[in-house]
């Protein structure tokens, strides 16, 4: 299905890939400002990446090729998932009936690679982080599927290309309540999948409290750069998905639609920062309840649509 794609859709994807490192920066800046600090510059992410790429790498003598392949697969799978979003509001570079499953599958592939690369080092810390990651994901993934089911029911499209693209505009006035619930659930998923407060605190550096940060303790240099870029891209991807649901872009010009998505992503990042300033991290055993709560929202959205 690549043949019919407007090249502008690819430009939009490239733009999102470019702005990704700034998105966690916006969240951090917001948090700093709200808590009365000056904080790191928004573009610090780019500087960190540039620094890491120039550094050498250190590999644990226990690790194998699984460890080295991990960061590569993480980034590749996220780029692939991004290709399935209709950023310009018209068509995604990659789409087919039921591609929502492929979107979730790509995310799962990245997670599998990351978790295995953590386990490859034979470290307790990384094993612990990997265990928490798969635990949280096993609650989050069904919620993501339920959100997609609600979008499919609301728009009648089996592909993200239609479901969060041209068809979403007509669905909003018809199924407002359901779509609001789905958007809320997606926002909670964004926080959970990207290890933000209240699920995990990206600012802590005490290994016992962390999820994402602890899996990559042994990554260094360009590998760490890939992992950091991957986590920024994942946040951007979820924010872009949320924006695609909330902002119908079919009426916008082909050039303004991606810009609107970029602006929306920045707004979502600010929201993440606000949540992080206003809330404390939940105890790990409470996290499933939060995500199941989001699942209940999505489920209720579906029930409203099945009426």
């Amino acid at each position, binding site marked *: 299905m690549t043949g019919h794609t407007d090249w502008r859709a690819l430009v939009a994807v490239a733009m999102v890939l470019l702005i990704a490192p700034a998105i966690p920066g916006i969240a951090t800046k917001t948090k700093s400002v709200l808590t009365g600090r000056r904080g790191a510059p928004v573009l610090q992410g780019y500087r960190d990446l540039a620094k890491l790429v120039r550094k050498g790498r250190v590999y644990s003598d226990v690790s194998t090729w*699984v460890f080295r392949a991990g960061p590569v697969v993480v*980034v590749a799978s996220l780029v692939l998932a991004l290709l399935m979003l209709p950023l310009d509001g018209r068509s995604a570079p*990659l789409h087919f009936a039921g591609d929502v499953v492929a979107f979730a599958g790509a995310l799962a592939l990245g997670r599998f690679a990351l978790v295995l690369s953590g386990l490859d080092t*034979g*470290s307790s810390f990384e*094993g612990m982080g990997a265990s928490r990651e798969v635990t949280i994901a096993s*609650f989050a993934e069904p919620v*993501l599927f339920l959100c997609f089911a609600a979008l*499919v029911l609301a728009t009648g499209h089996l592909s993200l290309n239609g479901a969060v693209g041209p068809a979403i505009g007509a669905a909003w006035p018809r199924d407002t309540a359901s779509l609001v619930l789905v958007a809320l659930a997606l926002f909670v998923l964004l926080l959970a999948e990207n290890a933000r407060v209240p699920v995990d605190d990206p600012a802590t550096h005490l290994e016992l409290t962390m999820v994402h940060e602890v899996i990559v*303790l042994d990554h260094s240099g360009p590998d760490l750069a890939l992992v950091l870029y991957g986590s920024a891209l994942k946040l951007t991807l979820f924010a872009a998905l949320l924006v695609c649901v909330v902002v119908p872009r079919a009426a916008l010009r082909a050039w303004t639609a991606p810009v609107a998505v970029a602006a929306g992503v920045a707004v979502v990042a600010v929201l993440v920062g606000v949540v992080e300033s206003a809330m404390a991290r939940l105890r790990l055993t409470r996290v499933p309840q939060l995500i199941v709560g989001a699942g209940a929202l999505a489920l209720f959205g579906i029930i409203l649509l099945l009426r």
Partner: protein
Amino acid sequence: MTFVFWSVALLLVAGPIGALVSRRAAAEFAYRACVSAALVLGAVPAVRVLAGGSVASRTLATPMPGGPWVFGLDALSALFLLIALGVGTAAAWFGVAYLHRGVTARAARTSHFFLSTLLAAVAALVVARAAVPFLIAWELMALASYGAIVLDHGQAGVRRAGLLYLAATHTGTLLLFVLFAAWGAGAPDLTFAALGGRTLDPAARAIVLGAALIAFGFKAGVVPLHFWLPEAHSAAPSHISAVMSGVVIKMGIYGLLRVSLLMGALPAWWGWALLALGGVSGVLGVVWALAQHDLKRLLAFHSVENIGIILLGIGVGALGVAYGHPAVAALGFAGAALHTMNHALFKSLLFLGAGSVVHATGTRELERMGGLARRMPVTALTFLIGSAAIVGLPPLNGFVSEWLIARSMFGAGLSASPARVAVLGVGVLGLIGALALACFAKVFGAVFLGRPRDASVVVAGESAAGITRPMAVLAAACVAVGLLPGVVTPPVLRAGALVAGHANPVVPAAASDPAAMAATWFTLGLGGALLLLWGVVRSGWARTPWAAATTWGCGYGLPTARMQYTASSFAAPLLGAYRGMTGVRVVRTDASLATHVADPVLDAVVTPGWNRLQEAARRIRPLHRGRLSIYLMYVVAALLAMLTYLMLAGRGA
């Protein structure tokens, strides 16, 4: 059809040839040659039918009751025939190398005999189109697999597992008699054509479908009828576990699909029941798997999980038939059929991989393993491919079938009938997938990554080529099916449309699936992107400097294997969330901690129930005196009673 008969005949002689040829190498060569030739002979007509060729059929007149023996090869039979012969051949080749160590030549020969007989029975079963040959093949399959399972019959645990399997499979067979008796009452004979031609009233239909659900559910290992499965799979030699999981339990699925096809007009409750059983089997299967620390038991519980996924597909298909959505029905049945094939490929691969690991280390205990990726590179790579496939990750085959099933659920959701509630099944599918990911991260991490936790694992080396090659072939098949959904989807859609009851001319239209072609671009793109990035990064690595160091331990420089996260710890947070359902019992002392896993159904229901039955049987035990004359008296008394009954009944009429 003649080709299939020859294939069955070759499989039947493959075992006895081993007994005739005295030199072991020659006997093994003949055995492998027979099985491989049977695969070719069976695959040729099967592929032709799947590609849309004409459906073959053959009728043999017999003097036996039940009418003529009809055999036929349609798309559904062809798919299952391919699965059975493909997986069976890989397992047979593996088995020859695997049984070179640890067992006597005689025992190995017996095992080969049972395996090839089992495959012959399965091949006959899927082409049988009449109740009598179906039942004969079914029984032969059950007995041959029993013989194959109890190879290690010196161990009490193996004998117990074998007995449990026999009890379960014969309970199922008994219900098959009920099924055919209820269905065939009033039919001219017991050929499937005659059965399918009958229109049953709802009560008779409920009996037939209910009996099918239990009989085939026992074989497939549907919760709560799965209790025999983990025992039998872990007791059997690994290649037999592969065939049990990849082929034998799939005959339960075949039975359900065949009954759905023959029944034609399916009631809605059947679809909802299958959907509910599928969801329960899927979620509980994977949760129980997470709790295991025996590698083969864990894989066996994943078979329960995947049977659940397959039932979800059949359930949506049945709902599509019941509420009149042919496209949804075809997609659901096709997804179920494809997942059956995919599960056969990756689960037999995983069982063979487990066999290779057990062979090299001598243990099945996850907590003793670790670091095998360095010691067994081929086993590790193929096991990783199998793991990613069973989790349903793109670009591997598990993803393609789960995608088809999810599509059928979305399709049902967009319909205007009550079937749209089935859309909630995608949430269940997501839950199963995520839990399976957690479980296989645990397995692969504990077995292949990190450091060896036990001395026996330190010295382990890669298995012989005879063991790794069948695994490589199965892994390649997983990748090929995953990369080319556009190639494999049309044939399975043809099978799905057949079960959904489309008239033949409609089949080609239903079988063309543009989305599958688009999905091919996706999977090929993903595969290509991964390869490309791998190449770029590797060449980048070759240039930039790197250093080796110990794993980061927060400044502690002497980490040991015992400091690693264990498989049990890895699964603990998830199991904590499902406590009460997992059957995990923790035994804790001041200095040690051990977990024991009980099967909630077997240990809480079946075993106490069996004990109570034995207790009740004690009352009639005095009837057994062990003297022939008394038994003859019983026979005469029974005959007299029957005669009296017949006379009385005759007078009444």
